[in-house]
């Protein structure tokens, strides 16, 4: 099961898309309280979103996006039933993706 939650609803003539991803987003600057060792950086570096297969948003992120990232965006000219897909890739090469239909 994918760890991405997407909610896409129509608001006027645009789709309001809200995405929640599950990710620790470690900056690499934090220390482990027990061992005093730096926790290695582990964060999402790229996110892309498509509407019916066409790219609408591509993002590059640094480590300063909050843990379990939230992303909200709007797409004009979308219709109910259109497919919204979101995927991410982190600095370790891990990936995840999910797809929903606009409600």
């Amino acid at each position, binding site marked *: 099961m994918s760890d991405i939650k997407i909610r896409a609803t129509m608001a006027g003539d*645009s789709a309001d898309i*809200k995405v929640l991803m599950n990710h620790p*987003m470690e*900056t690499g*600057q*934090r220390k482990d309280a027990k061992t005093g060792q730096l926790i290695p950086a582990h964060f999402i*570096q*790229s996110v892309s979103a498509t*509407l019916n297969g*066409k*790219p*609408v*948003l*591509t*993002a*590059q*992120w*640094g*480590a*300063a*996006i*909050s*843990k379990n*990232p*939230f*992303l*909200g*965006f*709007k*797409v*004009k*000219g*979308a219709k109910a039933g259109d497919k919204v897909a979101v995927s991410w*890739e982190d*600095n370790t*090469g891990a990936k995840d993706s999910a797809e929903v239909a606009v409600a």
Partner: protein
Amino acid sequence: MNQLRRSFLKTTGTTGAIAVAVAAGLLKPTEVLAASWNKNAFEAKSLADAYKGLGVAAPADSKDIAIKAPDIAENGAVVPVEVSSKVAGTSSIVILVEKNANPLIAQFDLANGAEPFVSTRIKMGQTSMVRCMVVAGGKSFSASKEVKVTIGGCGG
């Protein structure tokens, strides 16, 4: 004794081979990612270097960019930021926090009908100006808003 040595060599031999194969397999996506992820810009330690990494000149101030963020953030680890732009032809939105160790937070490229709007949550180490830059037609514009942070979200 001999038998033990033999099996030891055999196992290490195999695991070694697997490790090499995994490393070779893993190397590829990392390399591809390194090419697309703007390392220079994201690891820049100052606003000026971040702009340089992004390949833009210092942006001109614009009143057409609206930033919605709290005046006071109690928790710097989660600061909601919403950016919307009225600059015609907005193709990218970039969020920077001037006093973070690495000022560049995120870059969003918009296409195919995406409205000039993004909403996300960011980490802030201390009270700072949050600067939002917009790229439209090869020109860059920015606006900023100060967010006071009571507990930092970096380091900790």
